[in-house]
C-alpha cells in the first residue's frame, strides 16, 4: 500500500485516493468548432507512457481536492 502525498493533507494511504488519468487535458474552448476527430481525440485519447507521467489525483476519502502529481508508471514512484 503506497503512500501518496496530498498537497493539502500530507502523506496518506493510496486507498484514500481516486485516480483521474492524464493531467493537462483541458476542456476545449469551443467544442463546436472542433472536427469530429479532434473532439474524439479529447474525449477518448490519452497518453500511456512507460516512465514519468503527469496525472490527476483526487484525495477522495480525505479533503476531496484534486491535484496533479508526477509518477513513474514503471516503478510507481511519485516524483518529489
Amino acid at each position, binding site marked *: 500500500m503506497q*503512500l501518496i502525498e496530498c498537497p493539502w493533507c500530507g502523506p496518506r494511504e493510496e486507498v484514500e485516493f481516486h485516480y483521474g488519468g492524464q493531467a493537462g487535458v483541458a476542456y476545449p474552448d469551443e467544442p*463546436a468548432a472542433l472536427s*469530429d476527430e479532434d473532439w474524439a481525440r479529447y*474525449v477518448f485519447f490519452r497518453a500511456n507512457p512507460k516512465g514519468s507521467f503527469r496525472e490527476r489525483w*483526487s484525495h477522495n476519502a480525505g479533503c*476531496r481536492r*484534486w491535484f496533479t502529481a508526477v509518477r513513474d508508471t514503471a516503478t*510507481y514512484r511519485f516524483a518529489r
Partner: protein
Amino acid sequence: MRLPTGGRIDRSVTLHFTFDGVGYTGHPGDTLASALLANGVHRTGTSVNLGRPRGIVAAWSDDPAGLVQVEEPFPEPMLLATTIELTDGLVARGIPGRGRLADVPDTARYDRRHAHCDVLVVGAGPAGLDAAREAADRGLRVVLVDDRSEPGGSRPTGDETLVPGILHLQRTTAFGLYDDGFVLALERRNGTPHQSRQRVHRIRAKHVVVATGAHERPIVFEDNDRPGIMLAGAAREMLHRYGVLAGQRIVVFTSDDAAYEAAADLAAAGAAVTLLDARETAPAIPGVEVRAGTMVVGSEGVERVTHAVLSDGERLPCDLLLVSGGWNPTAHLFSHGRGDLRYDDALGAFVPGEPLDGVTVVGAAVGPPAPNRLVLWRTPGDPAKQFVDIARDATVADIARSVGAGMRSVEHIKRYTTIGTAHDQGKTSGVVATGVAAELLGVPVASLGTTTFRPPYTPVAFAALAGRDRGTLFDPERTTALHPWHVGAGAVFEDVGQWKRPRYYPRTGESMDASVLRECAAVRTSVGILDGSTLGKIDVQGPDADVLLDRLYTNMISNLAVGRARYGVMCGADGMVIDDGTVLRIADDRFLVVTTTGGAAKILDWMEEWHQTEWPDLRVHLASVTEQWAVFPVVGPRSRDVVGAVFPDLDVSAEAFPFMAWRDTVLDGVPVRVARISFSGELAFEVNVSSWYADVVWRRLLAAGAPFGITPYGTETMHVLRAEKGYPIIGQDTDGTVTPHDLGLAWAVSKKKVDFVGKRSFARPSNLDPLRKQLVGLLPVDATTKLPEGSQIVEGAVLPPPPVPMLGHVTSSYHSAELGRPFALALMKAGRARIGDVVHVPVDGTLVPVEVAGSVLVDPEGTRRDG
C-alpha cells in the same frame, strides 16, 4: 524425554492435553511439538500423497511436516505442532497432510491496529534487540515485533535486556513487507476470553530493520522423511528452550561446523552422539564420536527411525537422526520489498543483494558466516525416495522429471513439482531444490537463482485479515430515519447500494407480485406514500451556481425561477447519460440538486471534478445533504387531500401550487418543504423535512391518509409506476451507451445553450445513426407472458441460423395493475420507427411475439399529474 532441569518452561504447573486420542501432560512454555517429543511421540501424521509416516522436523514455523488438526478449544486445520503454544485441555490429532475446516461459527473476535514509527525492527534476537536499542537511544519512535513467545532469538535466556519506551510485541509475525515501509504483522494473543484472539498490526515505518535470523536446511538422502529425522538445530532448540531431549541415541549428519555445537550440547545433556561429517577432515569435540568423510545415504524404521545407513554400508542404530546442511538467511521480508537475492558460493545460500531504500538487514539474516561449509545438496541413492519437499512428497526424481521435460527456470520447476508451495512455502526445501536442479542441469546455482518470496511469510487466517469487517460490518449498511417503522410494518428490504430500502410491504400470506399489484392500484386510484429519503441531494451555493449547472446539465437551469423545479439530465463528455433528477432553485445563488439513489456520490464527485479541474474560477460550493433531508412522496389522486390536511398553512390548490413548483411551510414550528414532483405521472407532493422529524411527519401523513386507505409502497411499486410512464432508471434502462435522445428525452436537451458537457458528442456520426437503440415499450401479444429482464429481441417467429441478428434487449419488465397485463421497456434498434411492429423475444426456448409500443403506456396525455 523431559530433562529434570533446563529450558524456558514452568515445571511447577502441569497442563493436560490429548493427541490422537491419548492423554499427555506438558508445561507452560511448551509447544505441542515439544510436549509430544517430551512424551516420546515423534510421529504426527502421514504425508499428503504417499501416506508415509511423518513427524516433527524443525522447531518453529519452518517445519515442513508436523501438521495437526486442533479440535479444542476451536477447530482449526493445518496448524504446525511446533507453533501451537500448549494450553490446558488442548485436543489435537495428526492429519494426512490435509485438515478440515470448522463446521461451527468462530465466536472469537479478530482485530486490527495501526502503528506508525521511525523504525520497525523485525526479530527480537540479539541483533534485533541491539538495533531497537540503538534506534531508541537516538530518540526515534520504535516498534519491535518478534514471532516467538519471548525475546532472545534462537537461545532465549530470560535475562535479555529489553528496550524501554518502545512498542514491543512478542508472538507477532511480520508476514508481509509492502510499499513505503508498510508491514503487516499478525499477533497471536492467547489471552483471556474478552480479548480478540488475533490481531493484524498495520505498521507504517520510515525504516524497517530485518533481523529475522536464518533457517537451517537439510541434506537430502534416501528415506530422509521418517519420523525421528530432524534438523540438528531443532533438536538443540528443543533441549535449550523446552528441556526436551528428543532422542537418547543420536546420529548427527552434517557438512558444516554449526552442527557441532548441537552435537556437543546433546552429548552434554546425556545422549550418546555419533557425528558423521561429509567433509574429509573434521574437528574433534569432547563426548562425541566423530567420523570424517562419512555420509548418511539412507534410513530404516517405519513409525520412527531405527538405523542410519552410512555411505560405507554400516547400519548405525539410532532413535534420532539429525541433519544439518547449513543455514539460509531468512530474507523473506527483503524479498517482499523487491530486494534481489544473490547466491553466495561459500555459504551455499541466497543472501540479500543490492540494498533496498528503507530496509536494512542485520544479523544472521545477512548470511551467517560459515568458513568451512561443504555445500552438499544430497547423497547418492534412489532419487524417487529422496525427499526435497517433505510437505509436498516431492523428490529428486520429480525435479529430474521437470528438468527432463525441458524446464530450465526454478519458477517453472517449482510450479511443476509443487516444491515450496505448501504451508511452509519451502523454508527448508526451496534452496535445496535449486541446488539439486543446478546439479541435474550441470549449471552453477547462481545462474538458476531462487524463486521469489511473496507474502504471507507464514499462513494467516482469513478471519484475522477480515478483522471486524464481517457480518453486518462487512459493508456499511445505510438506513433511513424511518427504518424502524419499515421493520415494524413488515417491509421486505432490498439493497440499493449500501442502502436498505423497503421493496414492498406484504400483508400476511401475500406474495410479492400480489403486494406490488395492490400497492400500484392504491397509488393510481387513491393515495400511496414512499420513503424516498435515499435520493441523493446536493446543496449548490454561490453566485456562479447557475453557471456550473448550465454547463453540466443538458437543459437550461439558469432561467429556472426561484420556487420552481426542473427535471434535468447529465451526460458524460461522450454524450451518454450518467444521471437524471430534479433541480430546485432555492434562491438566485442556491440550488438543490436531486440525484438517483445510486448516483449520489458519483454525481457529487463529478461536479467537484469539473469545478476544481476545469472551472476553478466559478464561485460555487457543493455539499451533500442526502442524510439531512427525509423525503416522502405522497402520490395519487387523493394526495392533495392528505397533504392539505397535514399542512394547513399550505395552499395546495392547483392554481396556487402548480406542477414542478415547491413551497416552504411550517408544521408545529418545524420547517417543511413540499415539492410537486411526480415519478409516477400521478398528482404527487414530495414532503421534505429534517431527518430528525421524519418519523412524526410520516405518521401524521399516514393518519391524515387513513380515510383514503393511504398505502405505503416500496421500490418495486415505484419501479412499476415509473415504467408505465416510460421514465427510465439510469443504470437499469441505460448502460453508458445511451444518449438522452435514445431515451426519448430530446425535450430535455437545450438547443439554446452554446455548450454543455456532452453536447458536442451528440453531433458525432454514431450518435446520428438511425439504427441506434431507442427506449420503447414492449407488449407481449398473449397479454400474459412477463418477459425476463435481459432477454434479447429478435425479428421473426423462426430463428435463422446463428449468428442471429439481435435487435436489442429487455431492460425492465413488470405486471401492470393499471393495464391488467405484463409490459416491458426495452432498448431496440430504431425502436421508435417500429412502433406497432411485432417482433419476438425468446423465453424458455419459445419465441414470444411482442408488439413494439411507445415507452409511455399509462396516461400518455399527462392528464393525471394535476389531480
